[in-house]
């Protein structure tokens, strides 16, 4: 009988020991688990912040590209100057920035409007445009991770500077040309290597000239 009581006591002590050890183990596991989960959540937040910052950067650069194209197209219709192109593209680009961003799980996404210091516009020797710069943007995730800065870089195919120069040159020559059709053919032949195409015509007695740049297209076509 003494032996049996001894076993019961042993079991009781063992049970208490196991419960205490279990509680310690549970606490340890739980702490470790929570730490790992928090670490993973933090890493996911960092990944998402980086991905969103990267997506905003790409989208802004694409917008800048379309802003340049739109500005060139609109100013080009009246053979406007390079300065006008620059002004318009800055306005259009800032309109996009002003529209803002909304992402769930983000406390704030702040992108400042661009100016002459943060967005530089360079006219290249071939008449194209290269726009580049840096916006002091900030992205703050609700879990605290943050990303800073947006690099701007965009260039578009149409060589506006060259087109403007040629348009003015050919228009001046066309005004003195006795036969406009023959002059148009000659101009197309002379500038075919640069992939420029001229269309010269009279509309209501007014001489008009349209210049297209075939390299500016966004479709690849096989060369004949």
């Amino acid at each position, binding site marked *: 009988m003494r032996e049996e009581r*001894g076993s019961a006591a042993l079991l009781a002590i063992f049970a208490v020991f196991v419960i205490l050890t279990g509680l310690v183990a549970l606490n340890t596991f739980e702490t470790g688990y929570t730490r790992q989960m928090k670490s993973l959540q933090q890493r996911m937040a960092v*990944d998402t912040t980086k991905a969103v910052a990267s997506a905003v950067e790409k989208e802004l650069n694409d917008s800048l590209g*379309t802003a340049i194209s739109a500005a060139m197209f609109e100013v080009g219709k009246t053979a406007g100057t390079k300065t006008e192109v620059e002004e318009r593209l800055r306005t259009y680009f800032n309109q996009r920035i002003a529209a803002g961003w909304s*992402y769930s799980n983000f406390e704030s996404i702040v992108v400042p409007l661009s100016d002459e210091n943060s967005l530089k516009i360079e006219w290249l020797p071939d008449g194209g445009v290269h726009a580049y710069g840096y916006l002091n943007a900030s992205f703050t995730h609700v879990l605290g991770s943050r990303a800073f800065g947006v690099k701007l870089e965009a260039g578009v195919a149409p060589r506006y500077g060259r087109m403007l120069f040629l348009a003015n040159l050919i228009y001046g020559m066309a005004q003195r040309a006795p036969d406009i059709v023959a002059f148009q053919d000659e101009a197309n032949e002379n500038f075919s290597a640069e992939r420029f195409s001229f269309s010269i015509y009279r509309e209501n007695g007014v001489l008009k000239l349209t210049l297209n740049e075939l390299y500016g297209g966004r479709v690849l076509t096989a060369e004949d």
Partner: protein
Amino acid sequence: MAGLRSLRSSRDERGVSDVLSLAFMFLLVILAGVLLHSYRFGTISSASDRQLQLKTEYLYRTLELSQVENYSLSYLGALAENVIGVEQVVPGDYLRSSLGDVLEYFSPQGYGVMVELANENSSWVQIYPDDSEKPSFETEKFTFSGKVTIIIAGADENRVAQANASLTLFEVGR
């Protein structure tokens, strides 16, 4: 021999409580093991979720950067042109077929991909595999979204046109 015999007999006498002790110990060990494993699996599951979320973000990035064959225009750019309704460089049918090939190539095994773009009343939804339906609310899915902007030349108003884009990775066949 006598000593051994007495030991054995004394053990035999307290066999029930010994068995009970052993049974409880066994049960506790099993419970502890299950608990430990449940914690481990929880962490592994979260790590797996993180990888899938990353994959979703990479897929979105791929569509942002890669260009439709024969066109110098990204997939998201081409989709946005179709959805916004400006002059389309890439024909819709060709774009759908080409995008389907890209999604087939990049989607992980056992997962489907859904690409959605929407602008006001117009939208583009494409799902790979083709026979899949939109993932239900209960389906485990990972989404990354963004915007595609086109600045429209000559537009009097709404010059800055935006399409909301989202890419969703979801489990199929479960």
